[in-house]
Each structure stands twice: as structure tokens, then as C-alpha cells.
């Protein structure tokens, strides 16, 4: 069953089609919310709000050059901004790895856990916009074009922001690796 067909059914209010869309996108939306808010429960609540908005407004959705995924993440982005504005919470720099979140994300390999935590720490050095682009790209899995449609920016602007963010992360991570190696070397001595 194509996504176009499911979308059409969802627009007609078919609950099963809505459920399929939800199943398909819920992980991506949750990951986006988690890495942007840094809090498991908040991410869960905001994910529910996003899908509530989808359920109530999908009738008005038309693919006029904006694919469903970009439309969905536009809603997610708007909910997030709304959350910060309403709750007077400012954006968190740090991501809390609570027990539930760890169970959600991490494979059993300790090396992956270490690298995951390492990349989260490195992301604290990104600006809000850079983090938004990185999270949309890597946690939510959008491509540059979809990110551009989500944030209503040009593709070139997104590309350059992403490159800048990656370069910054590369520097931070590269240095951390070097430092850890030198520490390990000292311990051996």
C-alpha cells in the first residue's frame, strides 16, 4: 500500500490509515523531540501533541510541493517552539539519559553507548539552529530538501548550516578522541 494511498484514506478520517502513519513516523518524531528537549517525558508528551495535531488537521493537508514528512516535522517544530514559549523553559543544552531513554536508544554494545554519549556531549557545543538541523538530519532522518521545507529555509542555507555543524562536531570529537588516547597512554605508563 503506497503512502499516497494511506494519506488519502487518513484524510478521509479512516482510523486504520491514521494508525499506520503513526506507526511509521512515531519513532522519528519522538527522537526529534527527545534530542531537542533533552527530556524523555517531555518528548513523549510533545510527540502525542504532534500526532493529535495530525489527527485533527490532516483533512487540510494537501501535497502542494511539501511532502507529508516535511509537513509533519513542521508541526513538530511548531509544537516545540510553542512548548518553550508556553512553559518558559529555554532550550536545554544537555540531553538527560534517563533509564527509559537508554533502553530506547542504545544497542547492547558498550562501545555504541560510549560513542552515543560522546556525540551528545559534543552537540552541546552547537547553536540552537545547528542542533535543529543535525537532529532533523540524523535523528529524524530527513534529507536536506525536507529540512529546508520543514524550517522554511533554502536548501543551500540548510546545506551550509549542516556542514558548519558537522565541522564543529568533527573538531570537538576529534580532539576528545586524541585526549582520551593520551590519557589511556598515561595510564599504561
Amino acid at each position, binding site marked *: 500500500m503506497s503512502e499516497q494511498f494511506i494519506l488519502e484514506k487518513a484524510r478521509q478520517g479512516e482510523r486504520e490509515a491514521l494508525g499506520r502513519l503513526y506507526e511509521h513516523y512515531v519513532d522519528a518524531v519522538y527522537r526529534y523531540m527527545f534530542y531537542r528537549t533533552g527530556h524523555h517525558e517531555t518528548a513523549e508528551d510533545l510527540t502525542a501533541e504532534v500526532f493529535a495535531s495530525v489527527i485533527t488537521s490532516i483533512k487540510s493537508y494537501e501535497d502542494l510541493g511539501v511532502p507529508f514528512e516535511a509537513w509533519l516535522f513542521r508541526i513538530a517544530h511548531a509544537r516545540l517552539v510553542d512548548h518553550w514559549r508556553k512553559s518558559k523553559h529555554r532550550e536545554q543544552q544537555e540531553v538527560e539519559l534517563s533509564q527509559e531513554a537508554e533502553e530506547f536508544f542504545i544497542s547492547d554494545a558498550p562501545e555504541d553507548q560510549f560513542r552515543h554519549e560522546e556525540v551528545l556531549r559534543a552537540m552541546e*557545543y552547537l547553536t540552537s539552529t545547528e542542533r535543529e538541523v543535525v537532529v532533523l538530519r540524523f535523528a529524524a532522518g530527513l534529507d536536506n530538501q525536507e529540512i529546508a521545507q520543514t524550517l522554511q529555509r533554502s536548501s543551500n542555507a540548510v546545506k551550509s548550516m549542516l556542514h558548519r555543524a558537522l565541522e564543529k562536531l568533527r573538531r570537538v570529537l576529534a580532539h576528545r578522541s586524541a585526549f582520551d588516547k593520551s590519557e589511556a597512554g598515561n595510564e599504561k605508563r
Partner: protein
Amino acid sequence: MKNANQTYPRDLENTIAQLELLRYGTLSPEARQRIWGKAMDRAAAVSQPRAQRAPLLRSIFNFKAFTLQSFAAVIAFVLVFGAAGISLATPSILPGSTLYPAKRSLESTWLALAPEAQKPEIQLRILDQRIREMDQLLEAQRPVPEELIQDLETFYTSVAQTPETWDEPETLQHLAQQLTVLQSLEDERPGIEVSLTGIFLASAAAYDSLGGDVAALHLDNAFLTPTPTATSTPTSTPTATATATLIPTPTPLPTPTPRPAPTAVFLPTLPPSSFLPEGATPLPESEVPVDPEHPVHPEHPEHPEHPEQAQNDKEKDDKDKDKDKDK
């Protein structure tokens, strides 16, 4: 969810591979069910006709309850995590904002009340905030206040002056990250109006004073590349002036401890002999080369640039003496 494949430069491959970890994991069936349930409830509440929604009075009551809960939560948050929580959770309050002085004040309180052992770590985290603020100002193309730059320079200078009070591995790691980020700020915005050189050199001096090797960070910064003349050419007199001009606003640094390979850029106030390699002796006075632009005449040091003028003065003096004798 499709896989958004895209090509990236080779040197970013490792970073990309690490970022791919962000896409790991799926929600448990229970969590999916829970979120779906909440979404349906909220959608149903929104779809209700206005008349069926909660009465106004109840809404106000809920609002009050929410406000009280929020207030209590904030108090608890402050008590548990200290002012740092508020300060670090408010990265978007930037210099120029009306809330900014309050933010800084909270940071100071937090620092003042913290146990001595935690102060270095807290100061480093506060410094992270300053760097983020600078980054955000630059990104928004807003001017970076001089005070912000001064704050950073002062802090790094204080680290360089009192290296013994800093927990070395932690501070080194933190400083290295900050240096890296500062470098990337400059790389990303070539030609930015604010000069990061002073901060850069001060932070590098701090890193150096703790025994870190700045060269090992491979930051590609012209100001951090040691000049060979400064360390290996004892007969080259311009080394001292050349080094001093690298720092636009020299800050007094402590007397440097001798190192096998000193990085001259961090030592702006050293006398020229400090750049001599171990065992080398400075040139005797008489062998000091004459500056071609300001030659000192051996017989007329008071007229270094115009020996002929000095000669004229001497002749005039002699004539005056002769006149006196005639009288």
C-alpha cells in the same frame, strides 16, 4: 522512514558514523500505545464543540494550579541544582537582553555559594556559556560586547597565572574543547568584526600553563604556530618585537617556567634573552647589530639619526667659546 543517503567530505565520515547512532532505537509497544492514547485524547478534546469544553472558571482554577505547580517546581529546581540550573538552561538570554544581568548575577551567586572543590568546574561551565553566547551573537550577526571578550580573556589569564588551582586533566580537556570551538567560530565566519585573537592566545596560554600541548590540537591557527626565529636563532634581534606584536592587548602573565620547547607566542613580555636556547649566551653589547632605520652614531648618541646636525652643534659651541674668550 527512508534512509536519507547523502555524500559528505571524507574527513567528516567518522563524525557522520557517530551521528548515525542518533537514529537507533524504537519505542516499546507500551510506549507507542501510551503516546497514541494521549494523542487521541487530545485530538478528541480539540474536536469538541466550544460549549462542551471546560468552563472558564475551571480553566482559571487550572491555570492557577499550573502556576503554583510551576512556581514550586522552579523553587525546587533552584534548591536542588542551584542557580546554575537556571543559568545553564537559559542559553538564549544574550548580552543586551534585559534578563542578562540577572543571569550573570545568578551565575555569580552560584559560584560564590559553591564548595571550593567544585568552583573550577563551575567556572569552566560558566565560561562555556560565554562562548555559546558569543557564538549565538555572531550567528545572529549582532555585535559582541567588549566586556564579553574581556571576561573570557581575564578568565584564561587567571588560569595561566594559577595553574596549580586547576584540576589538570579535567581543565585541560575542557580548555581543549573551548579552543577547538573558538577556532571553529573564526573558521566559520572569516572576516568577522570581532577579533578572537586575544581570547585565543589567552586560552592557549592557559592550556600551555597546565602542561597541554596546543600544537597537538592541530588548530591551524596562524597565531598559535611557533615562529622558528623565536626559539632557535640566538643572533636574530627582531624576535622579541615580532613576538610582542602578536598579542593586540598584552595581558600580564606569570613568569614562565622554563620548558624544553617554549612556545614563544604565549610569552609576550619576555626579554629577548629568554628566547635563547639552553646553553647559548647572548651577544655582547658591542656586537649588537645596528638597527638600519634608527642608527646610533658612536660619537653622537644624542643625535642618532643626524650625525651631521650634531657636528654643526659642536662647531657652534666652539665658536661661542671663542667669542667668550675674546670678550
